[in-house]
């Protein structure tokens, strides 16, 4: 089965979003995963910036705005 055909078949399941529980559940699921990935990427950026500049106290980090 080709990728687009498979995706099309899965999207056929979109009729299920008529069910309010499934609609809300899907939104919660997507938001949860987006929050998770967002926090990880943001944190990764902070870690890498601090690793370049060296570990410092909170006040020093805040003053130099090291990606926080």
């Amino acid at each position, binding site marked *: 089965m080709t990728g687009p055909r498979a995706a099309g078949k899965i999207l056929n399941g979109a009729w299920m979003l008529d069910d309010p529980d499934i609609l809300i559940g899907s939104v919660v699921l997507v938001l949860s995963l987006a929050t998770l990935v967002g926090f990880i990427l943001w944190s990764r950026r902070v870690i890498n910036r*601090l*690793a370049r500049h060296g*570990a410092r106290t*909170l006040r020093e980090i805040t003053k130099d705005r090291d990606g*926080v």
Partner: protein
Amino acid sequence: MASDRSPVSSELSRELGLFQITMMGLGMMIGAGLFIGIGKSIHEAGSGGLLLTFALNGVIAIMTAMGYAELSSAIPRAGGAYNFARLAFGRGTSFTAGWMEWFASSVAGSMYAVVFSIYAIEYLGGLGWIGWLPGERVVQERILAALVASLFLYVNYRGASETGRIGALFTIGQTLFVVLIGIVGLVTVARDPARLENFKPFMPNGWWKILATMGFTFVAFEGYEVIAQAGDETIEPRKNLPKAMLYSVGIVTVTYVLVAFATVVCVRAGTEIVENGKVVAVVDEPWRWIGSFGATGFAAAVGQLMRRAGPFLVTLAVIFASTSALNATIFSATRTAYALGRDRMLPGAFARISQKRKTPWVALLATAAIVLLVATALPVMDVASSASIMFIFLFLLVNLCVIRIRRNMGDELAYGYVMPLFPLPPLLAVLCLGLLALHLFELSWLAWVTAPAWIVAGLVVYRLYSRSHAVATEDEIAILEEERAPEDRGAGYRITVAVANPANALDLVRNTYRLARSKDARVELLHMVPVPPLAPLADAERYMLEGKEGVVEAMLYLAPMFPLSTTLRYCRNPARGIVSAVRERRADLLILGWHGAVRGGVFQLGSTVDPVIERAPCDVVVMKDCGGDRSFRRVLVPLAGGPNGALALEIASILAEGEASEIVAFTVNTGRARFDVDAFVRENEGRLAGGAGRVSTAAVRARDVVGSILREAESYDLVVLGSTRVPVLRRLSSPPVPETVARTCAKPLVMVKAAGGLTGWLSRWI
């Protein structure tokens, strides 16, 4: 008093990289919690609830993992929550954290042993290989669980270095297996989209049920605790520890959601269940059918998806996952018990090392007792719930530690990672974890008996033993000398005077006398002895002589007039020591002197005064050049409103000498926001010593606020002003007006900060 540990310290070699420690975390997480959690969660919360259980748990786990990551990047030492709690809250809470961690890891070990035995007996029973065994199924399971646990207890006694490497291989295998299940599920749905109907009804038992299933499965998200334990052995720990914690939570959450999805679509509605060539059942509602298997629901579902190899692969994965996690939890529990013994929080025997094997055998024996007792005595769901609830309590505490350590030690620790949006993630995590713990009661009341009972037992042990036997750590604040006034003398108002040196003491005494008389207060003289970072704490007394002289001089002046206590303490950081003393003594007002010199850098008034003003949970008065025989007849109070301005007026009215003195409430109108100084004085009339008769007001129109105040101050004896209310972070980018005036004003100056409101209340407790 000081540490009685050997001055010679040893260090573990740093050999673990990002990949290895991420694998350690994954190995702890992808295990029994997932496999038994799926069956139970789908039974309680339905198909949709199962998906959301893991997704939402991932969000709570990432918030807690961010806390662990921040603390581990700043304190990259083995010890985990036990270490963090010691720095944040001191010995008592630290003991409780270690005590909980020991139990949580031990009970998690019991759970892995029980799940191993349930799946192994189920599989072997299916093959008809154990029909000859006597006893009921549950008895067989418990005996096997005890045997497996004993085996790994013995492996830990032998030393677990090699099993660590094998564990990494197991982890890769089990992770690949569960990812494979997830992919097979997606492919199945792509071929047969009608299986998505399995998600109807999405929440058959209501949305609130998710909270209970989230609590039950939270044990499957506890791997970052093990990563934190590897702080001493990790290469570039400030960078790698936080990354490993965050990556491992990200990987397991996505994997769990994928596996949960696959489990739901494994079975098609209407499928005939065949056993020995006969149809024994027809699946009407897949979620109900999977849930009916309880702990083995996952295996039953996968068995329908991969009829031939499914049961074997699942059993193999569970055995791999359970054994590697069992080994790691026993190791972690033993290490925690050993640390408690090493710090004399538990009897020293817990730190006893086997001469032959170099392992802490007493700690291991004690851990074995818990693991075996729980594995054989409690029902499996209650074992899992007990482990979950204990980890929830532990993580709740760690989230509080993040807030407290940032607040108290942010100027001392070097951070390799600071979480974004602080303090929102730890506060939300505390709230959510509390909710999960409460709702877990629905699934296991026994967990709610076991966990609190263990904590209460810990408190008793601490009271009777640990409190008097614990050894001091490097960062603790300790009392060197103390002389306290009888509690019944003096009113309820308490003034603490931080004395830095003899000259400073005499400067503060005269004004302290006025303030104490006005408030009818008790006075406590406090001297912090800062011990340099590399000097042993045992030498603290060598550094205290100068401060002691100052305290004695101040005492001679004040003791005849007020109930007076004196305290000398040593610490690594004077600001933290002062705030800690003020909080402990429940002081209402703190007075400290300031030399007026600032070397630049990140502080407005200095590395001691700034943190004290920011964190002290009481009113603070900072005095510059106010000593000697100075009398304050003309006092200027620059105002812009707010509680600090009101306190500045009050303090000015106390310090102004005699009825003939004059207090001028002064404001600079920049044209942006109009401030009515007359109304402000009228509002605060009741607070002024001697009434408002001596107070006049003045206002000028100018753009340069600092310049206007400095010019006005030239004709006054004293300037009293409120500290800025601008948040600390914003202060660093643009210096606030009061602090700039304080730095540049040549006149005697008093800066005040008022406590109160939510921030003041939180400061007292957190």
